């Protein structure tokens, strides 16, 4: 094998690895949105802004008290859960049954919420780009493969690897929670048919609050995990909200395993696209897939969503 | 040629056979009653004829033309209108506006549409309600509004899905009168109804289904007295 071919293989391998690792984080963001969408049948257009909030919590915990971002998950998860419950209880639930001309009352409300959160962050923390300078930020693990007389050297970013691992663990926990616990089963029942669930004695109000809390906690976890590998700024949420619904549509709305697949696909698409097509269009590749899915398989890649 | 003809129509939802090998036809000028216990597949048949669902297999012909691949609005434009068991008023519009919407499939002009709508409203005895907002109507009037709207499309064939359910006795009488009037004006009718007194008195012919399949067909008295029809009802509705 010529060194050029080996180089190409190395590049491709590297691109795939970073795509999958990034996709793990995206999956976490998508899981949160998919859960909310499944139960509440709405999109949360403040999803990315909630992630931004979690990123700043993690940032300040690190800056002020030297709390490692992975440790701060222990603070971020409960805090974000409570924030989500509060938003659902005091903002979204009251407008749910309001009889108004415009549909999507709750979604419109999340638009307002997103605007408030991102601009409040702007006011409090300025537009400066910040990062969390952990000691392992650029730590890399190498993996050499001998192939046809050449050595192909693949690198794994340590913080990305940890983030991927934690994301997958959280995804698995969510799956177990939804499958094995009473509350989890109640969430699934509510997602399937809210009225029937209510008739069976499920407290759908409470379940909806828990769902929004969980969705918020999941995207919050993604934010904390993103901190060591990304910079943060107040307007970071918007693009991630877009990513979240692209993932959700890819996976099929309300489909939990689908959301993980959708996250991985988006991560790979961005990674492959920005290397082989153009870096400038990185944010647009997800949309191209999104449109293709809408045209050819509107129920999502797994064909199980609600079209 | 029959006005409407279903030949060997089946509809599956996943593993569930909602309608199986259904064949029947309606002749022009007829009132055909469709009966059967709850969940027998009556509304599914309406949804198949109307175009909301496409049959898994089989054919549906209306005036000789196949309509089983058409969308509901295309079916409607060919002269086949329906009402909904769970009423669907356009809640923020007035009764008149509700009825003008279908009238626009017969004319482009607003004035003409209003005229046609008022005719349908008059015909269904709703004139005093014309300016009321549909969302504020009592159930009896919502059911009547379904009739008025379907009528405003000027149908050849009208599918009525439980238009009598939830009405009080005097409303039932009025609605029977209206349905008879519609029929006399030259509209063929296929009607789903649980109220046996109503269906026996207005149908020319009855079709009884259970578990998505036809179990009896014929003169109302004969069908109502067939043992397995009685059994189907006693086994579920009257249990």
């Amino acid at each position, binding site marked *: 094998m010529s060194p050029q071919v080996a180089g190409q293989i190395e590049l491709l391998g590297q691109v795939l690895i970073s795509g999958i690792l990034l996709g793990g984080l995206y999956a976490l963001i998508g899981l949160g949105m998919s859960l909310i969408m499944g139960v509440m049948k709405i999109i949360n257009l403040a999803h990315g802004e909630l992630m931004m909030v979690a990123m700043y919590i993690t940032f300040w915990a690190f800056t002020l008290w030297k709390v490692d971002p992975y440790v701060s998950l222990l603070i971020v998860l409960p805090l974000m859960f409570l924030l989500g419950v509060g938003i659902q209880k005091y903002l979204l639930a009251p407008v749910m049954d309001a009889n108004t001309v415009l*549909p999507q009352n709750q979604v419109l409300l999340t638009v307002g919420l997103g605007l408030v959160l991102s601009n409040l962050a702007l006011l409090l923390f300025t537009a400066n780009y910040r990062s969390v300078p952990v000691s392992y930020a650029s730590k890399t693990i190498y993996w050499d493969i001998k192939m046809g007389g050449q050595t192909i050297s693949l690198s794994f970013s340590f913080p990305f690897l940890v983030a991927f691992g934690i994301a997958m663990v959280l995804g698995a926990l969510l799956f177990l929670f939804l499958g094995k616990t009473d509350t989890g089963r109640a969430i699934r029942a509510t997602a399937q048919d809210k009225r029937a669930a209510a008739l069976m004695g499920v407290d759908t109000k409470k379940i909806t609050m828990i769902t929004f809390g969980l969705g918020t906690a999941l995207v919050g976890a993604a934010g904390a995990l993103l901190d060591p590998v990304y910079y943060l700024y107040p307007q970071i949420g918007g693009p991630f909200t*877009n990513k979240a619904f692209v993932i959700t549509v890819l996976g099929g709305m309300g489909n939990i395993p689908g959301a993980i697949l959708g996250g991985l696909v988006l991560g790979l698409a961005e990674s492959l696209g920005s290397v082989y097509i153009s870096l400038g269009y990185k944010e647009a590749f997800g949309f191209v897939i999104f449109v293709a899915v809408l045209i050819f398989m509107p129920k999502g890649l797994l064909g199980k969503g609600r079209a | 040629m029959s006005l409407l003809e279903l030949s060997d129509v089946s509809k599956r939802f996943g593993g569930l056979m909602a309608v199986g090998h259904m064949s029947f036809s309606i002749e022009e000028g007829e009132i055909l009653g469709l009966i059967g216990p709850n969940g027998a597949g009556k509304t599914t048949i309406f949804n198949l004829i109307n175009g909301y669902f496409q049959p898994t297999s089989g054919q549906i012909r209306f005036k000789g033309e196949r309509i089983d691949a058409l969308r509901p609005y295309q079916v*409607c434009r060919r002269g086949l209108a329906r009402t909904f068991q769970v009423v669907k008023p356009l809640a923020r519009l007035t009764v008149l*506006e509700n009825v003008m919407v279908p009238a626009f499939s017969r004319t482009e002009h607003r004035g003409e549409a209003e005229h046609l709508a008022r005719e349908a409203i008059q015909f269904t005895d709703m004139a005093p309600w014309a300016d009321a907002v549909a969302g504020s109507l009592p159930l009896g009037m919502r059911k009547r509004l379904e009739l008025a709207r379907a009528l405003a499309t000027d149908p050849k064939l009208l599918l009525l899905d439980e238009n009598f359910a939830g009405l009080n006795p005097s409303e039932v009488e009025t609605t029977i009168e209206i349905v008879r009037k519609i029929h006399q004006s030259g509209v063929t009718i296929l009607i789903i109804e649980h109220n046996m007194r109503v269906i026996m008195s207005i149908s020319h012919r009855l079709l009884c289904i259970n578990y998505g399949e036809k179990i009896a067909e014929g003169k109302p008295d004969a069908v109502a007295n067939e043992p397995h029809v009685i059994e189907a009802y006693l086994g579920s509705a009257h249990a």
Partner: protein
Amino acid sequence: MKSSRFLLPFALVVILLIPAVVKSPYLLHMLILSMLWVVLGQSWNLLGGFTGQISYGHAAFFGVGAYTTGIIVKLGYSPKVAWSGLLFGGLAAALIAALIGWICFRLRGPYFSLSVLALAEVLRIVAINFKALTNGAEGILYLPAFNGKAYYYYIVLALVTVNFLVIRSVMRSKLGFYFLAIREDQDAAESLGINPTRYKLTSLLISAFFTGAGGAFYMNYLGFIDPGIVFSIPDISVMMILVTMLGGAATFWGPAVGAVLYILCSEFLRVWLPSGHLIFFGILIIAIIIFFPNGIVGSLNDLKARKKRRLAADAAAATPTAPSVAA
């Protein structure tokens, strides 16, 4: 009503004479911006308020209109020719809208709302990267065709008037009835002979055309655009929704009331709370939805509707078949 017969022509004369009397460029600027936002609000309202199809990304159409104009200038045509952007920008926006509508309106669910939001983002990225045509993030700058605000005042007045008349005549015709029917209940509409995909698309095309024309006017008036301004989700897409909701969705005069209030608020905030204006508008959106969901004009109409309902109650009492008799 008799009073409105005199009121409307009188108001028209006043509006036409304003530039002759008002010489303050600042005041005229405010009026011009207000009218531009009336166009944007009305256009969003046709699709969102009357047809019930919520768009979170109308900046896509605004930006396409603005960039069509900008590209005309960049290709070397004179600023006077750039006014043709009012037509071509509108058409370009409608073309993009046709594509996205054709893909999304066949599907049920929030697909359209989401796609159009993503579309605005993608177009922003394209505008940043396609430097040959757009100058990228630098934006396009040129010297506008006219000196003096009066020209712009009359042009935007014409635009807002045409926009208003088109929407009103649409809403009084078959199309309008179909739009409302689709908003109220798509299943019912379809069973009554309406092709929902076709009429949602029609509503979107009209809406996108005028939004694009608004974008083109913006470029012609200010002479500068960049991707971050014209494709902005918060500053364009969301504010179009705010203007409509504040005034009253699905009303004829709501967007006008909303636009004027929006411009007043913006100016006030620009002076007193420069970095917090979006926080204020965000809170305003939440407050409107919770406390005042039908907006200003909508709430006034609700009062009238209550009268109508009383009428219905009277009718019920007069009709022997009314359930109140038997119940």
